[in-house]
């Protein structure tokens, strides 16, 4: 098939899935935090609040887009655009699965593979700070300016440990392409321990995830938008879709950071168990989820549960059945297994992001800076030195 048409189809699929994920990620976040705090979370719009993201989108679009009179209009409007565009563009180099063949078409489950894919993501994320900094400055408001300043300082500081943590697995795999990175991590030590980078590079993985929290301005590093000090930080003066753009950029950055962590440290789409056993994991997981939902649907705790939970059970059992059937179709199996393991790992990391938000309080500003420069930075330098020493000693 034509390269152009194929790319368009893949781009459409990725864009649709990514934007839907961003909307529902917010629903998941609200639900998880609510349950951590013993609330139910969104529950009114649709069953279990499932239509809440849709309602939020409609609300944000139909709200009046207010431009305050004291702002620098050009930069004020440019900032959310820069933030969201750069946050969404990184997904184009993220591979979701191996090479697949559907009929006459052979393609990778990835939009494009750059030889410098890892550098591309780093470059885009380092430019992304302009969105926040400009938005804070152009709002012409002291809280916004403080938020923008904090954000730039924080991102400059945490980019160092992040880049150093990324460099260690790059040294091991001797490549800058995500695809080769995952290929390097396939296979098993002693037949059952996955050759993922997070095992030799456990320090690098931890540093990467912590710096990732800071890069995405998430709790406990969410000082740029600390409500109780700065109203809403850099997006205080934004409303309607410009506000939504900043919000979307934050979630898109979260997805990018978790996807990169999965690819660099957790082996991408490679399963944690050898081939024949790993095939049954998705079936068991979805069947268990379906049975639990069915049990709670038959013993309803709330009035609507006897309708909604059996429906959810049916859905999960259906997915389990699809995974079961896919074992007999090699093409479907390749796609579904890769997607299951990749999305599973990304979702686990996203859950950790949300979990941390529900658990930890916010750092003070001096603690944040001291932690980056005297904690994470030396650790990541030592980790990189040790890795390079090992690589230099073991390669011919």
């Amino acid at each position, binding site marked *: 098939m034509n390269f152009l048409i194929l790319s368009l189809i893949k781009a459409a699929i990725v864009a649709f899935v990514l934007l839907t994920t961003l909307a529902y990620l917010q629903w998941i976040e609200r639900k998880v935090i609510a349950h951590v705090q013993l609330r139910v979370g969104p529950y009114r719009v649709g069953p279990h609040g499932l239509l809440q993201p849709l309602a939020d989108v409609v609300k944000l679009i139909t709200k009046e887009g207010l431009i305050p009179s004291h702002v620098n209009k050009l930069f004020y409007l440019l900032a959310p655009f820069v933030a969201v565009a750069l946050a969404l563009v990184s997904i184009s180099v993220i591979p979701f699965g191996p090479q697949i063949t559907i009929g006459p078409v052979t393609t990778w489950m990835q939009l494009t593979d*750059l030889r410098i894919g890892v*550098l591309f993501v780093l470059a885009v994320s380092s430019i992304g700070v*302009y969105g926040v900094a400009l938005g804070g400055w152009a709002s012409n408001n002291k809280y916004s300016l403080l938020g923008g300043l904090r954000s730039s300082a924080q991102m400059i500081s945490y980019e160092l440990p992040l880049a150093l943590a990324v460099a260690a697995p790059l040294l091991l795999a001797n490549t800058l392409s995500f695809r080769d990175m995952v290929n390097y991590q396939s296979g098993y030590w002693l037949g059952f321990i996955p050759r993922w980078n997070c095992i030799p590079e456990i320090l690098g993985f931890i540093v990467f995830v912590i710096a990732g929290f800071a890069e995405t301005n998430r709790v406990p590093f969410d000082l740029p938008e600390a409500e109780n000090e700065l109203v809403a930080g850099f997006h205080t003066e934004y409303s309607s879709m410009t506000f939504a753009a900043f919000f979307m950029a934050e979630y898109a950055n979260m997805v990018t950071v978790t996807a990169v962590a999965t690819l660099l440290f957790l082996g991408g789409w490679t399963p944690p168990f050898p081939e024949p056993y790993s095939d049954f994991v998705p079936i068991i997981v979805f069947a268990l989820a379906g049975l639990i939902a069915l049990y709670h649907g038959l013993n309803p705790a709330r009035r609507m549960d006897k309708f909604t939970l059996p429906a959810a059970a049916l859905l999960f059992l259906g997915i389990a059945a699809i995974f079961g059937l896919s074992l007999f179709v090699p093409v479907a199996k390749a796609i579904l297994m890769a997607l299951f393991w990749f999305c599973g790992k990304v979702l686990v990391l996203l859950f950790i992001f949300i979990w941390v938000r529900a658990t930890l309080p916010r750092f003070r500003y001096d603690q944040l800076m001291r932690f980056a420069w005297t904690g994470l930075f030396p650790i990541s330098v030592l980790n990189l030195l040790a890795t390079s020493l090992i690589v230099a000693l073991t390669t011919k």
Partner: protein
Amino acid sequence: MTALIFIILAGIAVFCGINLVVQTHPIASALSLVGVMGSLAVLYLQLGGEFIAAAQVIVYAGAIMVLFVFVIMLLNAGAEGTSFQVSRFVRYLGAILLAAFLGLISLMIQSTLPRTEGVTFGAFQGTTAAVGRKLFTTYLLPFEVISVLILIAIVGAIVLARKEI
């Protein structure tokens, strides 16, 4: 296609470069410089220097210019006035001198450059591995000397900035 991309990007780079000088507000000037860096990165990419392109964006646009913008925001620098006195004599003579200067420069470039083929798109060996090999073989000494130089600059900056020492 590559020529079209080159013309567009070169145009953006020149426009941003002029805009950098013309703009009176420091933030606008800084962002124009980011535009220059970005379009230069794409030009490097066209030549085949993919590592240089990525380094250009990460180091210049992503680190140095962010620091520039940070400092401008921190000092809250406003728009500079353009009301310094320029006499009519300077203005007209300046235009003639500028034209003469540009002509001289182009003449010199014409005469000194050897008459060879221009650089072709993608001919440059700029993969990460190639750059790394060059840095650690042919250019090892300059590379290491520069790192020491930067270290001296950092130590010097700290010594100058700290009052107690």
